[in-house]
Every structure is written in C-alpha cells, then in structure tokens.
C-alpha cells in the first residue's frame, strides 16, 4: 500500500512536469504574475492541462484494457494491439469517416467500438481452433489478424485517398490535444472504474469456464463485459489520440511480477503505472528533439517492443 502511494506521488510529479514542458514558455513565475487572459495562462488551460489529463486517462485506461483482456483470454501476451482490436477500431473509424463524414465524433467513436468488439470476437472465435491454447500462438495469431485487418483498412484508405490521414490517426500523438478534443477519454475512466468494480469476477473468469460456472457466475456475461470494456477503451483512445502499441501488455506484466494476479489488488497499480509510463514517454518525446516532438507511439513502440522481447526471452517465462 505504501508503495502504491509512492507510485501515485511519482505520477503527480510527472504530471506537474508535463504541465511545464513545451515550446511556449509557461513557468510558475509567469503564471503568477499574469491574469487569466494572458498567454501563459491560456496555454496552460487550453493545451497543457488537457494534454496532461488526456495522457493520464489514455495511459491508465489502455493499461486496464490490456489487463482485462489478459484475464479473459487467459494469456499474458495479449492486449488490444496484439489481438486485432486496435486495427478493427481503425477500420471502423475509417468506414464511418467514409460513409458518414458529418456524424459527430461521439457517433464515430461508437461505430469504432462496435468494430473493435466484432474484431475481438473474431479473434476469440479463431482461438477456439487452437486446441492446446499454446501460450505463444495466441499473440502470434492476434498480431497476424491485426495485420490482415490493417491491410483491408489501408486498401480502402488507399482507394479513397485517405492514406495520409489514416497514418495520422493511427500514429498515437498527444500534440494535437486541446480543450474540447479529449473529453471522450473520460469514457476510459468509466471503463477503469467498471474494471475495478468487476475485478473479482474477472479474476474468477481468469481461472476458466468450468471453475467460473462452478462458483455460480455467468461466464459468458463476464466475458461480454470484459470485451465491452476493452472495445470501448480501444475505440476511445484511437479516436482521440491514436494507437499506442504494447502499453496494455507491458504495464500489467510488470505489475503481475510485482504484486501477483489478484485483480482487485492489481487494478489500481496498473492504472497508476500505465499513466506514469505514458507520462514519462511523452515527456521524453517532447524533450529529446526540442523544439520538435516525437509522437508517443514511436517512443512507446521502441520501449514497448524492447520490453516485450525481454518478457519473451526471459530464461523461465512463467506465462499464463
């Protein structure tokens, strides 16, 4: 518990740093001496605070989505970007942008979430053909399924001359976050809270269908709830900031090494560490090539795939 407090304090410190990093000068002195209409204050309210909030929300909810997914698929190595979920959400967003460009963002997000749900359901369906549930085969099939869905998406994007915008959406990047453009991410917080409330159910569901039914829980219903949380979070993050690969894989695995697999205990950890990790990566991305920015998905991609390799090649991988 004390450690968790340290984690929370660390996240708050990072969040405060994040408020003051950027091209436009926003220092504490400038803020105190300026009135509400001045430039530093405006930058803070319009850009920095929304950006930091978006990072906190996206980071924690994506990490939670990964955790939920790992529980219901019963595999350590799945998360939205290794199960075709992110790619399906991208396809859905592209389809709705093509067919109904005038719809509000909220409606587009719902369509993307439906596609994400369908894509994840397809993934689970394919997994039924994997008889022994080979631990490594599951993410392998997921990544490939994502590749196939991604090819369909780029085909249509190419056909309708949307390839550059597709690349822009799917590249996770917080630099475009302003007030009024991130609020959908609060749905991610709702997902996190839902995951916390249903944590015990997911823990039980993680032990298998027979065990769950024995304990008097409706296995199907728990699975559906989990899938809905994962799909909504993936769609919301994709629509607001783009995709952030491997986040949902790295954070829950690190937490599971630290505190084990009881989801009631791991949910707060995963949420806090997810937020802190994305904050740190975003700050790095903003500082390395100052005054330019390196998008978060590139930074997380390097660190995330590196850590994933480490998890895979550890001598004794005690995978699920």
């Amino acid at each position, binding site marked *: 518990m004390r450690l968790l407090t340290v984690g929370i304090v660390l996240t708050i410190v990072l969040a405060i740093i994040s408020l003051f990093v950027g091209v436009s000068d926003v220092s504490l002195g400038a803020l105190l001496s300026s009135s509400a209409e001045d430039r530093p204050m405006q930058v803070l309210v319009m850009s920095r605070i929304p950006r930091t909030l978006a990072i906190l929300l996206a980071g924690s909810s994506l990490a939670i989505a990964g955790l939920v997914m790992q529980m219901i698929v019963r595999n350590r190595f799945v998360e939205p970007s290794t199960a075709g979920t992110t790619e399906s959400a991208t396809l859905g967003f592209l389809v709705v942008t093509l067919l109904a460009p005038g719809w509000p963002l909220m409606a587009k997000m719902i369509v993307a979430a439906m596609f994400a749900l369908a894509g994840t359901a397809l993934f689970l369906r394919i997994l039924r053909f994997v008889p022994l549930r080979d631990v490594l085969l599951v993410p392998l099939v997921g990544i490939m399924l994502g590749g*196939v869905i991604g090819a369909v998406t780029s085909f249509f994007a190419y056909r309708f001359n949307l390839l550059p915008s597709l690349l822009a959406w799917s590249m996770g990047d917080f630099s475009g976050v302003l007030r009024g453009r991130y609020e959908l991410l609060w749905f991610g917080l709702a997902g996190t809270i839902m995951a916390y409330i249903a944590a015990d159910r997911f823990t039980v569901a993680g032990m298998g269908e027979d065990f769950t039914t024995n304990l008097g829980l409706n296995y199907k219903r728990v699975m559906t709830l989990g899938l809905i949380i994962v799909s909504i979070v993936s769609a919301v993050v994709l629509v607001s900031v783009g995709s952030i690969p491997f986040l949902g894989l790295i954070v829950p695995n690190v937490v599971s090494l630290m505190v084990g697999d009881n989801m009631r205990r791991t949910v707060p950890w995963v949420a806090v560490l997810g937020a802190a990790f994305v904050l740190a990566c975003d700050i790095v991305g903003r500082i390395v090539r100052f005054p330019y*920015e390196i998008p978060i998905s*590139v930074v997380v991609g390097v660190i995330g795939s590196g850590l994933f390799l480490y998890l895979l090649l550890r001598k004794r991988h005690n995978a699920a």
Partner: protein
Amino acid sequence: MLRNLRWSRPTIVLAVLALVALISVVCFMTLGARGSWDFIIPFRGRKLLGLVLVAYAIAISTVLFQTVTNNRILTPSIMGFDALYILVQTAIVFFLGPQMLSLMNPYAQFGMEVVLMIGFSWLLFQWLFLSEGRSLHLLVLVGIVFGIFFRSLSNFMQRLLDPNAFQVLQDSFFASFSTIDTTLLGVALGVVVVVTLVLWRMGHTFDVLSLGRDTAINLGVEYKRSVVIILVMVSILVSVSTALVGPITFFGLLVASLAHGLVGTSKHKYILPAAALLGVIALVGGQTVFERVFEFDTALSIIVEFLGGLVFIILILRGAAR
C-alpha cells in the same frame, strides 16, 4: 497417372509456370503502350528488371532460409530481416550524418549497408537458433516483435534526424512496386548474379540440409560452413530486395508455400525455380493487372500483405492442429 515418366508433375508445373511468367512479362511490356518503342522499351524494361530481381531475390532467399531453419513458416522477413536492413540504413545516416552521405557514392553506401546487414543478421540468427530449447512459436513471435522493434527504432532515429520530413520517412516503411529505386538496379543485378553463382556451386547440398542438422552431418555435409554461406547469401538477397522496393512481410511466405503446394516434392531442383517463377508471375502479372486494368498503383503490396497474413494464420493453425 501420366504414362510418360519424363513429363513428371514437377516438370509440367515448371513448364506451365514459365509460360505464364513469360505471358505476364509480355503483357507488362506491351499492354497499353502508346508512343515510341524507343522510349517504352528502356522505360518499362528497367521496371521489369527491378520486379524480376525482387521476385527472384525474395523467392530464393525465403526457400533457402526455410531449408536452413528446417521449417515452412519462418521466412527472413517474418524474422525481421528486412526491418533490420532499414534500421542499418537509417543508422548509417544517423551516425555518419547526411552531409557525409551525400559525398559518398551510392554503391559504396549500399556495400556498407550489406556488410553491416550480414553481420547483424548472422548475430541475430546465431542468438536465436543456436541456443537450445526454443520452441518454434517463440522464435516466430520473437522474430515478429524484433521486426516491430527495428521499425520503431528506425522511425525514432529518422525523426531525430529530420522531424519535418514525416511524409518522406513514411515512404521507406511502405513497400511500393511501382516506384522502384533504379539507381541501384545495375549493382543489384551484379550482386544477384554473383549470389546465384555461389549458390549454384553448392546446390547439391540443399536437399540434404533440409533433412535436418544431424542427418546432414551424417551424410557428409559440412553443416556449419554451408549454413553460414547460405545465411550470408540470404542476407544479401534480402538487402537487394528491400533496397529496391522496401519491406514486404509476407511475399516470400506466399510464394514459397504456393511453390511447395504446386510442385508436390521438396527437391530444391524444382522448388527454387518454381518459387522464383511464381514470384515473377505475382509481381509482374499482378503489377500489370493493377496498373493497366484497375489503375491502382501501390495496391499490390497491400493485397500481398492481406493474402500472406491469411496464409500465415492458416499455416500456423494447421501446424497447431497436428
């Protein structure tokens, strides 16, 4: 059953494939041609040469890589080799600086890239394959994640170099068969010819190598030496194809699986030419169809990725069911 044994199934398949390949080449050169032939022949000829070289390089490198690793699912590009080439390319620019590079001859640069590529892919191979007790699925997954890692790392370095050139940098991650880098065509041709000669001289060992390490050693093949040579050649071929068109993950897998399915034997005498011819048919024929009939341009690489991904999922699920 065919009475005449000289016309066995593999021979017929090869003959048919050669014919189809020839037809696609002719169509590629002639369809929709307007204007003077003096212009068209060198213009399309150069593109054709590029496509044929890429098809050949990918097909041969994939089949031989599968022979060495003793496996029909692994291919150099699935193991991240072409992403590695892009990383090497980026790293050279990153550490030497763009100014230094503009002074350098493109051939010298390509040579340096190939040498580094051979070194790194050998290390990667050594590390992944020669340590004991790693399952196939772990290897494939690690290879794929290595690919993602190399790609993110090159992306990161390219952004450090020039944050504004976003669009330009995206190009190097997206394969395109319609814009082939023609400056390297000559040297690529030379390299491919040399590689072919080297492989030709050791061709008799391929069938034995595909029986596995222990059997190959028992039958008197210098296992380690042969594997090293083949791997070096594979790295060179991957460098050639990636330098010409960019990374294509599944083309090799597609071509090699089709070749195995059509020819029905695993003798390299038949598999290698069949894979190369299939590659030519897919690239030249496909490009003709897309350019002339549907008027799409880069769509071919997207469709190759789509089909290849499906084939991969099917192969791996079938393997799991067994």
